[in-house]
């Protein structure tokens, strides 16, 4: 019996269309794609659109407000550490997962962040849910979210030294 892949949207736009619309929005806000890397990655029926850090906030805002896309729910913000990845992408990816409850589709955005101290713009002005999740991402990876209203540590204690989910942080023996 052939069944649809798990997690596929029932009534929303398909992933290719979402990727195309997101890329169009990136062009409208004047963002240049990160050179020499694919703009859209597709794996197992899921797309990820790569957005330059300079335009991440503008794109997120447009995705939230765009008629027909309406990404009203910021499901997840997290990071991935690639310590040896060369420029222009650099060592960190900030990954956003967006869902549109109204339209019933979801998309993934990846923002490369070469310098964790410089970081990326906080999404808290757009979604309140970014508050806790960005706090956690900073707590674990040391990536700054510029303009975050409350950038304290959240899971680790306030006096903890180090960023536990970075690859150079030992699994045991810290």
């Amino acid at each position, binding site marked *: 019996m052939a069944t649809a892949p798990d997690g596929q949207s029932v009534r929303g736009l398909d992933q290719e269309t979402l990727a195309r619309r997101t890329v169009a929005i990136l062009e409208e806000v004047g963002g240049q794609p990160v050179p020499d890397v694919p703009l859209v990655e597709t794996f197992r029926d899921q797309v990820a659109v790569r957005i330059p850090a300079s335009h991440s906030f503008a794109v997120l805002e447009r995705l939230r407000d765009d008629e027909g896309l309406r990404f009203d729910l910021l499901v997840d913000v997290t990071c991935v550490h690639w310590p040896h990845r060369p420029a222009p992408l650099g060592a960190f990816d900030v990954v956003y997962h967006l869902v549109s409850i109204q339209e019933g589709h979801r998309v993934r955005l990846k923002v490369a962040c070469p310098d964790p101290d410089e970081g990326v713009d906080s999404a808290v002005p757009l979604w309140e849910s970014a508050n806790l999740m960005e706090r956690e991402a900073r707590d674990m990876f040391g990536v700054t979210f510029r303009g975050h209203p409350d950038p304290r540590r959240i*899971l680790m204690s306030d006096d903890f030294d180090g960023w536990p989910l970075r690859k150079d942080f030992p699994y045991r023996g810290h």
Partner: protein
Amino acid sequence: MSTNTQLPEAGEGLSPELIEAQRVETVIERVSDDRMVVNMGPQHPSTHGVLRMVVTLDGERVVKVDPVLGYLHRGMEKLAEVKTYNQYIPWTDRWDYLANLQNNVAFAMTVEKMMDLEVPVRARRLRLLACELARISAHLVFLGTHAIDIGALSVFFWGYREREKLLSFFEMICGARITTSYTRIGGVMRDLPPGMEDALKIFLREFPKSLDEVETMLTRNKIWMERTKEVGAISSEQAVSLGITGPILRATGVEYDVRKAFPYLDYDEFDFDVPVGSVGDVYDRYLVRVEEMRQSCRICLQLLDKLEPGPIEADDGKVVLPSKERVLSRMEDLIHQFMIVTEGPVAPAGEVYQAIEGSKGELGLYLVSEGLGRAYRMRIRGPSFVNMGCLAPMGEGGLVADLVAIVASLDPVLGEVDR
């Protein structure tokens, strides 16, 4: 506190002591501008685990709530980077430790999606059954503890009596009551024992009646309604902005359920309704969860009728452990077994996100693989963690006693909040 108490007119026949006592009370109210900071938790009985809230009080009124998280942080995401996929399954029991089965299923599904591995129909059915039973069991804990926080002790016993039966079923399914570790990459660890289906059908038919019992006790109960109606209400817009999912979001009237919007495990083949509330207060959350239990029963009964015999593990020698006889008689299977145990079942490089509708909301796993038998990075999007964001908007401005009701209605499981 005593805003309705009026000072008696002089000469109304009250004793001078009483008049003096009431005068003192009003004086205390007038000078209570000083704010007080109270630590609620991490060892407070009503916080359901090691949740600590720093609460600023103005008398009985809550001015500010600041949840302090991390007391149960065990580095679940870091651990996923050093354990092979099968080794990690026992750790998934310890995220939301009241609905372990659904964590097992979510993790196995994510890894299989990465591998693009097709799981046999019976295994999918058994997983769906496990998910729904876990939902009922988790909601029963919510019901019991929520009631106990508000003062209805007997509901706690009734809820746990039913949960006890479910835990016995879990024991029949996988040999453990809490640390189930039911799934394997490619299937489930074992089939239902003989006689279980009939016993489960009897339970599922009886169970709604015991829910009726609970509802008779609570739903129209004056005290219950006073304590929960209009308490901790939140608008649907704010709930969506806060990233709330699951019963809390649906109590505000937003019909978002991963099982309907992004179906997995053939949920689209079963008839069930998604209950929604209208006000988004503590009372609505209670009603939504009670109805969800009934709907889960409905799904399970349909599923048991559709359940057909068949394999419970995928036919892929590089992922699923071969049987002992084959290991001892065929060289390829011996090699496969060695590789699966030592290196783990290998998933190609890539990244996937798989969400399921957990008992608390959208449980999403974002898995990044580098082509090894373990994850390069695994993000656990625990719904309880994100749902903690609504504690402050709900609790601030209310009474301390309401805060207890609100925490109970959020139903946080700290294993999932702190991971």
